[in-house]
C-alpha cells in the first residue's frame, strides 16, 4: 500500500507532466511519423481524401488520416464500429451525432447519458486488449495521454486501427474533432461543431469580464489536499480568454498547493470541480464554511461556482458549456 501510494503519486505526477507540460506537441504538423509506417503505399493511394480522382481504383478510396501523435492511419471506409476509450474523445463522437457507431467505451466515459447503454471496457493502465478485440471495432479512438504506446502497438497488431488524440488546448480540441470526424465520416458535422465552438468562444473573448478579477480553480477539496489547475490547463486557458486571471498561473499543470497561498492570493471567484455525492455539505457550502476563508473576497461575495461534470477538464465540446457557465456566473451581478 505504501509503495502503491508512492507509485500512484509518481504516476500521477508523471501523468500531469505529460498532460500539461509545454504545449509544443499540440499540432500535428511538425511531428514526424514513427519508423514503422507499415508501408501503406502498396495498399492504398496516398492521396488525401479531398482529391481521390487521381486514383486508378474503381472503389472509393480509403481514408488516410494523420493522428495527433503523427501516426498515419488508413481505413478502407469510414469507421462504422468504434470503441472510444477516453472520456473526452467519447464525448466528441457523441457530439458528432455518431453515438450509434460506438460499440464500446472506456469505463470512465460518462457523458452523454446514452454511453451507459454501451459495453464498458477497461481503460488507462488497465486496458484489456482481449476485451476490445471481442467487440470487433474498426477503430479505437483514445487520448494519447491515457494510453501506453506499447499497448497501442499491441492493439494494432490485433488488427484494430488506433487513432490517438492529444488535445492540450482548445485549438487541440478542434484538431481532435476534425480528426475524429474524418475517421467516422462526419466531416461536415465536425466542421459545424468546430464553427459553433469557435463562435461561442469568440463571443466570450469579445466581451471580456470587466476589472482585474482573479479566479481560483479547485480540483480537489481541502479534505484531500488542495489541487489546482495552473498554466497549460483548459481552465487557465478559458479564464484567460474571458479576461480573468488565474490565481495560480505560476503553477505548471495541476499541482497540490498550500492553503496559505489561496488565502494570501485572495481570489475574487472560486470554481470547484468537486462532485457532490449527496451527503454532507455541498462543495460550495463546504468552501463557504472553511475556517480561515471567511475573509476571502470570493467567500464574502458568495462567488463560488461548482462545475461538477468535468466540463472544464476534458478535451471535449462541453468546454464551451463550462466556459459559458463560468462567464455567466462572473458577469451575473
Amino acid at each position, binding site marked *: 500500500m505504501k*509503495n502503491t501510494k508512492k507509485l500512484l503519486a509518481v504516476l500521477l505526477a508523471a501523468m500531469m507532466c505529460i498532460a500539461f507540460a509545454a504545449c509544443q506537441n499540440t499540432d500535428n504538423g511538425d511531428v514526424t511519423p514513427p519508423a514503422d509506417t507499415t508501408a501503406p503505399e502498396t495498399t492504398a493511394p496516398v492521396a488525401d481524401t479531398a482529391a481521390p480522382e487521381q486514383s486508378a481504383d474503381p472503389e472509393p478510396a480509403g481514408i488516410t488520416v494523420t493522428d495527433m501523435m503523427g501516426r498515419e492511419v488508413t481505413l478502407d471506409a469510414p469507421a462504422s464500429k468504434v470503441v472510444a476509450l477516453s472520456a473526452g474523445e467519447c464525448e466528441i463522437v457523441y457530439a458528432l451525432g455518431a453515438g450509434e457507431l460506438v460499440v464500446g467505451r472506456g469505463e470512465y466515459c460518462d457523458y452523454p447519458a446514452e454511453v451507459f447503454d454501451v459495453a464498458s471496457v477497461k481503460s488507462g493502465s488497465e486496458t484489456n486488449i482481449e476485451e476490445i478485440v471481442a467487440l470487433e471495432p474498426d477503430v479505437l479512438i483514445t487520448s494519447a495521454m491515457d494510453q501506453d504506446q506499447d499497448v497501442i502497438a499491441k492493439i494494432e497488431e490485433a488488427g484494430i486501427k488506433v487513432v490517438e488524440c492529444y488535445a492540450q488546448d482548445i485549438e487541440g480540441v478542434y484538431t481532435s474533432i476534425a480528426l475524429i470526424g474524418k475517421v467516422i465520416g462526419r466531416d461536415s458535422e465536425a466542421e459545424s461543431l468546430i464553427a459553433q465552438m469557435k463562435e461561442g468562444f469568440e463571443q466570450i473573448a469579445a466581451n471580456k469580464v470587466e476589472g482585474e478579477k482573479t479566479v481560483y480553480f479547485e480540483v480537489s477539496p481541502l479534505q484531500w*489536499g488542495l489541487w489546482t489547475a495552473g498554466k497549460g490547463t483548459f481552465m487557465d486557458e478559458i479564464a484567460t480568454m474571458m479576461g480573468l486571471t488565474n490565481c495560480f498561473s505560476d503553477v505548471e499543470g495541476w499541482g*497540490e498547493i498550500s492553503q496559505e497561498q489561496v488565502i494570501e492570493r485572495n481570489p475574487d471567484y472560486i470554481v470547484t470541480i468537486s462532485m457532490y455525492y449527496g451527503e454532507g455539505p455541498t462543495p460550495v457550502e463546504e468552501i463557504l464554511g472553511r475556517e480561515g476563508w*471567511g475573509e476571502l473576497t470570493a467567500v464574502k461575495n458568495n462567488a463560488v461556482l461548482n462545475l461538477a461534470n468535468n466540463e472544464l477538464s476534458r478535451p471535449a465540446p462541453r468546454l464551451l458549456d463550462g466556459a459559458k457557465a463560468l462567464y455567466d456566473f462572473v458577469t451575473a451581478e
Partner: protein
Amino acid sequence: MNGTQEGFRAYEYILFAAAAILTAVICVCLGSVNVPLKSTAEIFRRAILGLDMPKELPASIILTVRLPRVLCVALTGASLSLCGAAMQGLLKNPLADGSTLGVSSGASLGAVIAIAFGISFPSLPFAGTMVMAILFAFISLLIILGLAYRLDFSLSTNTIILIGVIYSMFVSSAMSVIITFASNKLKQITFWTMGSLNGSTYANALALAAAFAIFGGILFIKARELNAFAVGEDNARNIGVDVKRTKLTVLICVSALIGVCVSIGGTIAFVGLVTPHAARFIAGPNHKRLLSASAFAGAIFLMLCDLAARTLLSPLELPIGVVTSLIGAVAFIIIFYRARGKSRGA
C-alpha cells in the same frame, strides 16, 4: 542503573519540551506565504489578549491554517513515534512500526471502505473514517501477529517484515477491488490515499490530542512491562507480567493511535520506525525514558519534515509522506544492516 530514577528527570523534560516548542515556533513562523516575524508576533499577542485583529494582518493564515497544522503534525509525529517505540519493545523487533507491519495500510483500507460505502455518523462528519480506520488497524494487527506467531513463535524480524509486506499487498489489492465497485468515488479515494495534512483544523488537533492523552497515556503506564518484553516474552512472564493482557492493551492502544492518525493525515511512513531509534541513542533502551524521548523526537522530526514539504516547492506542496520516506528509507537500511550485523556477531 542505580534504581533511584528510571524515568525522565525534570530537566530532561524541560530540555525536550523546549526543543519541541522551539521547532513549533519556527514552523509557525515559516511557511509558504512569507509573514514577517513581527506580524506573527503581533497576531499572537492580539490573539492571546483577545484584542481586535487589524485587517492588514494575515491572521487567518497564521491562526487558522498554520497553527492547527503544526499542532496536528506534532501530535501525529508524537503518536506514530510512540507507537513505533512501543511495538519495537513489545515485539522485541527493531523494525516494527505501523507502516512496516501493515497496520497503517489496514487503517487506510478501513477508511477507504468508509468513504466508498458512505459509512458515516450524521452528527460527526469524519467519525466514520476514523472509527473504521481504528477498527481495521486493530484487525490488521491481530491478523498479522496471528499469522506471524503461527509461522514463527519467536516473531523474528524476517517473518514479521515478510508478513507485513504480504499483508500490505493484500490490502492494496483489496482497495483496488473496492475502487472497482465504487468507481464513482475513485477521485475521492485516490486523493485520500495520498494523504494530506493541508486541511488540518483545531478539531483534528483536539481529536489527536485526546487520542494521545488516553492511549499514549496508557502506553506510558505500561513502560515497565515493555521493558520486560524487550528482554523477552518468557522473561516477562517469569517476573510476573500478565503477558496476554499487557500485549492486548498495548496492541489496542497502538491501533487506536495509528487509526486516528491515518484517518486525519493519511499514512505517513517511517516516522514510527526511525525516530524511536534516534531517541534510543539519546535516552537509552529503558522504556520509561525511551517512550517520552520518542514522542518528543517524533513530534520534532515530523514538524521539520512538514516544514520542508510546505516550503521547498512553494506554492506547491509535497506530500509529507514523500519527505519522511526519503529520509526514512535511508535510515531503515542503516538500522537493518546494523541489526543484522549484531545478530550475526552474537
